Each structure stands twice: as structure tokens, then as C-alpha cells.
């Protein structure tokens, strides 16, 4: 069963028992599909969920994989010859990166899913687009990474793209002003990664973005270190640039196309083809708050339809958000801190011998 039918409806229109039933049917079918098509997935399932596993009666009973597994293992449900595109996650130097294998159909479906969500927020017309990044990020193929992929993924929802930052990441104030003058009176799309948006616009002067919609993502860690929360972020940008329509989104390369976007009430909403289960970090039982497990009906080329992330989150409401959108509305609080365990093997001391 292909999930394309779920993408024909307007975004955020499905909810309640009807959404649960439709998603469950798709997810059970995907569990069976990946089990047959991806032997490593089948081995993990048989060891962790012995007995029946493709007949989950509820969404929170659908078997899941830890998302980090895509960093250590090659998991795909299509022959190597059918791989159309391999996505890799961002990651600091030396860290393993996720590898996500897409065939042409999955790639097209994910693009379509993203379009369904974005057009719901931005409308059907392509808007003049201001990218809060440097052109080098997308033009230098040697450093092509998740940031570049994110920009290119969003670029199709805009036109007349203006890259707002210099190579040293300072705001090109004059160029941006000229570009804004050119589009005076028009609605504008602004896109960037949360921390770069903050750095670029927190002290911006004479940049009027009062008719713009800002879409941003990429984690709050650095901002929380500076004691900047979402409310401060929005208040500051409203003061410096007049930005009123600010929407963060939550998504990951392992479930690209499944984008949780911020509604008018400030909550992240699961799109039609996706849902979320929070798991208590001590018991792993479903709970209102805990580790975020993301469910998506989209991934057919790799077993990523049910993933336990290392993010912590809370379900705010299901179908009851005042913004009018259906589906789960959540808040994401950040990544689980790495635990430092004790033990004789102490690789960090190896640094003692590194010459200065």
C-alpha cells in the first residue's frame, strides 16, 4: 500500500480515530514490507519483538528502530541499483553520519509531502525568498551537506533568491535592503537555520521584514546556552525587523518530508502522514512527555517509518489546538545529554601524547 493517498488531502486535515486507523494500516504494511525487503531490519525485529510484529493494534505498539542505527548500519529496502539519492545527516567532524537511501519514487514522494506542508503555510504562489545563509553553502560541492540540502529543499518554494550573508556570515545589509526595495509590497519568504537567523537578525538595523514569513529549523542548543528561548527569539526579531510570522519546524533527514511545523499558537504539528509517540525515558512506556518516537507513512525505500529519536518532547494536545489544525501538536525540548560512563578503557587520555 503506497502512502500517496495520504498526501492528496490538505495538510493537517486528518485527525482523531480516522487518522490513527489510516496511519496504523500504512505503518503495519510498512513493517511487513521492510521486514521482507531489508534483512538487517528483520533480524533486529525478530530479536527485539519476537512473535507477531506487523499486526500492531495501536500506533504506540508499532516496532521502532533507534535513529542512531542509520549511522552505524546500511539499512535499505531497495536493491543497491535502485538507489536514486543517498541523503546524509549533518554532523560535526569525526561523528558518524546517517545514510538514507531513496529510490526515485520515495524521493518524489518526500518532495511532494514537503510541498503539501509548505504550501499550507506559504500559499500556492512562489514567494521572493531571502536565504539567511551564504551562497557558498550551496555552490561549493565539496562541502555539500545537510545545510545545503535543506536550503535547496526549500528553494523550490521561493523565487528570485537572495543570499543574505557574506562568506564570513555577516549580513549584507545594503544588498538585502536593495532586494527588499525591489519586492516592496510583496509577501516574502525568509529561510535559515535557527542559530544563523538569530546571529544575522538579532541586531539588524533597517531591515523591514514585516511582510515576511520566516521558516527556520536546526536546533536550539546554542541559543539555549545563551538563554534564548522561542519567545525571546520571536520578540527580538519582531523588534529588530518587524517579523511577525515566525515558524520553526522539526524534522530529520531520517524522515525527510515529514515536517512538524509551528502553528499560529507556537506548537509543532504532525502532518497528515506522520504522528508521534512520547516514551517515558525510564520505562519507555507511552507518556505525555519523553523521548520522541516519530512515525511516518512515507519511507518505503528504507526502514524509517518508526524511529526512536534522542530528542525529548511533550505532546501539547491531539486535535485540540486552537490554531484549527488537526493532529498531534508537540513541543521539542532538545537532545538527551550524552552519558559519561565509568570504565577502565579511557580513550580520552590518549590525547596526552598528542604533540602541541
Amino acid at each position, binding site marked *: 500500500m503506497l502512502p500517496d493517498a495520504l498526501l492528496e488531502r490538505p495538510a493537517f486535515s486528518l485527525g482523531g480515530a480516522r487518522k490513527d486507523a489510516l496511519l496504523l494500516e500504512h505503518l503495519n504494511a510498512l513493517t511487513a514490507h521492510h521486514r521482507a525487503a531489508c534483512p538487517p531490519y528483520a*533480524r533486529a525485529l525478530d530479536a527485539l519483538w519476537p512473535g507477531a510484529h506487523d499486526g500492531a493494534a495501536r500506533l504506540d505498539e508499532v516496532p521502532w528502530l533507534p535513529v542512531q542505527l542509520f549511522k552505524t548500519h546500511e539499512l535499505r529496502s531497495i536493491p543497491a541499483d535502485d538507489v536514486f539519492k543517498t541523503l546524509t545527516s549533518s554532523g560535526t567532524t569525526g561523528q558518524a553520519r546517517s545514510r538514507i537511501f531513496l529510490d526515485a519514487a520515495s524521493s518524489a514522494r518526500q518532495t511532494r509531502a514537503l510541498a503539501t506542508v509548505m504550501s499550507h503555510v506559504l500559499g500556492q504562489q512562489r514567494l521572493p525568498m531571502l536565504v539567511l545563509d551564504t551562497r557558498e553553502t550551496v555552490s561549493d560541492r565539496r562541502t555539500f551537506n545537510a545545510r545545503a540540502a535543506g536550503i535547496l529543499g526549500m528553494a523550490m518554494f521561493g523565487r528570485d533568491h537572495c543570499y543574505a550573508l557574506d562568506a564570513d556570515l555577516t549580513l549584507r545589509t545594503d544588498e538585502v535592503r536593495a532586494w527588499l526595495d525591489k519586492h516592496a509590497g510583496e509577501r516574502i519568504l525568509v529561510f535559515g537555520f535557527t542559530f544563523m537567523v538569530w546571529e544575522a537578525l538579532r541586531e539588524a538595523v533597517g531591515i523591514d521584514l514585516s511582510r515576511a514569513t520566516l521558516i527556520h529549523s536546526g536546533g536550539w542548543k546554542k541559543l539555549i546556552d545563551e538563554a534564548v528561548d522561542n519567545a525571546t527569539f520571536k520578540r527580538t526579531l519582531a523588534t529588530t525587523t518587524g517579523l511577525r510570522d515566525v515558524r520553526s519546524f522539526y524534522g530529520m533527514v531520517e524522515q525527510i518530508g515529514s515536517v512538524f511545523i509551528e502553528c499560529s499558537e507556537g506548537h509543532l504539528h504532525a502532518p497528515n502522514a506522520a504522528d508521534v509517540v512520547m516514551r517515558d525515558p525510564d520505562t519507555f512506556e507511552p507518556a505525555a512527555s519523553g523521548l520522541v518516537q516519530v512515525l511516518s507513512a512515507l519511507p518505503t525505500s528504507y526502514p524509517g517509518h518508526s524511529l526512536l529519536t534522542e530528542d525529548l518532547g511533550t505532546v501539547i494536545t491531539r486535535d485540540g489546538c486552537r490554531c484549527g489544525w488537526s493532529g498531534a501538536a508537540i513541543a521539542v525540548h532538545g537532545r538527551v545529554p550524552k552519558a559519561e560512563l565509568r570504565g577502565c578503557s579511557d580513550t580520552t587520555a590518549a590525547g596526552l601524547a598528542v604533540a602541541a
Partner: protein
Amino acid sequence: MSIVSTIVPETGRATAEAVLARVAAAPAVEPFSALAVDACDELARALLRERAHPEVASLGFWLRRANVERLRASFLAGAQPGGITVPRGLAFHVPPANVDTMALFSLTLSLLVGNRNIVRLSPRAGGAAAATMAALRRVLAQDRFAALREGTAVVSYGHEPEPTAAFSAACDVRLVWGGDATVAALRSVPLGAGAKDLGFGDRFSLAAIDVEAYAIADRDALAAALYADAYPFDQGACASPKLLVWVGDAERAAAASDDLFSRLERLVSDRLGPLPTGAVTAKLAFAFGAAIDLPVTRVRRPSSALTVVTLATLDGFTREHPGAGLFFEACVPDVADLARHVTRRDQTICVHGVSPEPLAAAGADRVVGFGHALDFDHRWDGMDLLHELTRRAVVECAA
């Protein structure tokens, strides 16, 4: 000129060169001097009062006079005729950052045989390490221990290479604890021509239970012993068992496994409480990866502080392990089959009802009873440290 933090004999800052100069000028002390035995006994009393850190108290137990006298007796009994045993001189210790008792264990062994000592304590060392060093500082502050105090320096510094280079060049023996990467890295730092390098690399440890013997064992005591062997250092001590092998009939082993692990789980939930979430998520990812890569038939309780990963066979077992309460489990028909799977990577094997000699002959460094995996012992990784830390001067003539 490189500055280090000093912890013993007093807290402060000094250059590595000044630390070296002071320690090198300390008077010589013969092996098992009354002074060193007295100091260890005083230290033992202080450590035994450390209720907050049980592993520190067990180091205190090991340092008591009665035990040190036994050490001395075994040391003297091992000496060959025709000479005298003397200290090597200056020992430089690099203990692991995250097993807090190793620094003092390494230091006191060396102190007992008369060496002067410099210990590099990691800035990341935990509260128990600080407690042991504070106790040592107080003991050595007494006037009568001045000779020992002058020959002892515990210092701390980050990853700057200069102090390590200076201490390595000056020492007569270097003890590096902390895994293959650390040992390999430190080997690239030159020692003096006559100096000796003792490296303690990555090791694996396991436990083996005879299925028939389990049926008649005190099973609560066995579970408690396994808990004490495995859990004190997040299962990360090299001697902590990480694999449990049942020897005997597979069907009865499965029933015994359910019984033992349910007893162990009660202890874990009573005494340990939940793990840090980051440790659970890392262990989960490891368990899923093991299920994909190894002949795993089942993973039980993947998200708790006691995870059991059952292997269909020990063939191809890699010995990779995440710590944090995960037991691989397998069943073999007899001890000969287990011995075939033992390698030189295996350090400690805890046994119950299983014949120890074939396992020692197959490559393990220690075969001990349940509950003794983490016992302090001067014999470690196949070496007698008391002998490694001394040298034998030949005397073949009369005056």
C-alpha cells in the same frame, strides 16, 4: 615550563620540573619498609570510613596491615637467592580517568616496594578519586612520613604534552592504565633508555556457570555476587563480566537464565535506580546493532539497567560492549567448548561449578569465584606488579 595542579602532598600549582626535582631528591626507602606499611595502614583506616564510596572502602580493606603483611610474605618468598631486591626508582602512573580507585591502587603498590611516585590524575576524575587523594594527603602530612611525602606527587593537568614528556623521560618505570588507545599513544612518548613500560590495554571479562551446579546453588547469593562483579563501574571495569556462559544442557540453561536474571533484576532495581537517559539510548542502539550483526536470537529488556542479549553461538563474538548493564549470554555443552572460545583478550573469568584450569590454559589471566572479579590483587594481566616495580641486584661475593 609547564604548570600542573598539585594534589598531593599539597594542593597548589607547580612546574613539572619543580615536581620532578622535589621527588627525585627524596631519600631512598627499601621495599616493604615499616614506614610504608604504617602509612598504608593509616590510609586503610581513613578509606574504610568512606561510606559514600563503597569501592574506596574495599581498597581500604586491601591496604590493611594484615593484608600488606601477606603481600610482603609472598613477595619475599618469591625472591631468588644471590642478591637483594631494590626499588626501580621513580614510577610515573597514568591511571584511567573513570575508575576512581585505580590511581591510589597503582600508587600504593609502588610506594610499598619503595619507589618514588608521580601520578597523573585526569581533571575529569570523579569524587571518589578526590576523596582517596585527600586521605593520602592527610596521612602523608604527618612528620614521621616525611620521607614518603617527599617522594610522592599526585598532579593533574589536561592534554598538554609537556608534563607527560618530562615525567616519562625522567621515570624508571611507567604504568599506563586505560585501554589500547591510551597505551599506544603513551608508547610514542619516549622513556629513558633503561626505563620499563607497563601497559594495561583493553580487556574483556566473562562469567561461566554450570547448569547442574546452578540448580543446587544459593541463587540469591550468586545473583548478589554477579551484581557486585558487574555493576560498580557501570560494567566498564576491565574485570567486570559482560558475557554469561551457561555450561550444560541448553533447555535447562534457558530456565536457569530466566531465574538468575529475574533475581539480578530485583537487585538492580532496588540498588541502582534508572540509568541516565543518554546511557539507555546508547545501549539501545548498541543492542539493535548487535541483533543485526551477531547471531542474536533474542534481546530482553533493552531499555532497562539490565539488558540480556542471547547469542545462538559464541562463534564470531566480537567482545564489543557498551557498558551500562548489558549481558551477552550463550550456552555451551561443556567446558572444553568454552575454552575453545577463550582468547588472550579475556582477562577475568568468574566461575561457578566450572573447572578453572582449562580456561586459564586457554588464555584468561584470572579465573576467580563469583563476587571476586573486582578484588584488588598485585597480580594483574599476567604480571606480578610487585616484581615489575622492583629489580633484583645481583650480589655474588662476600665483603
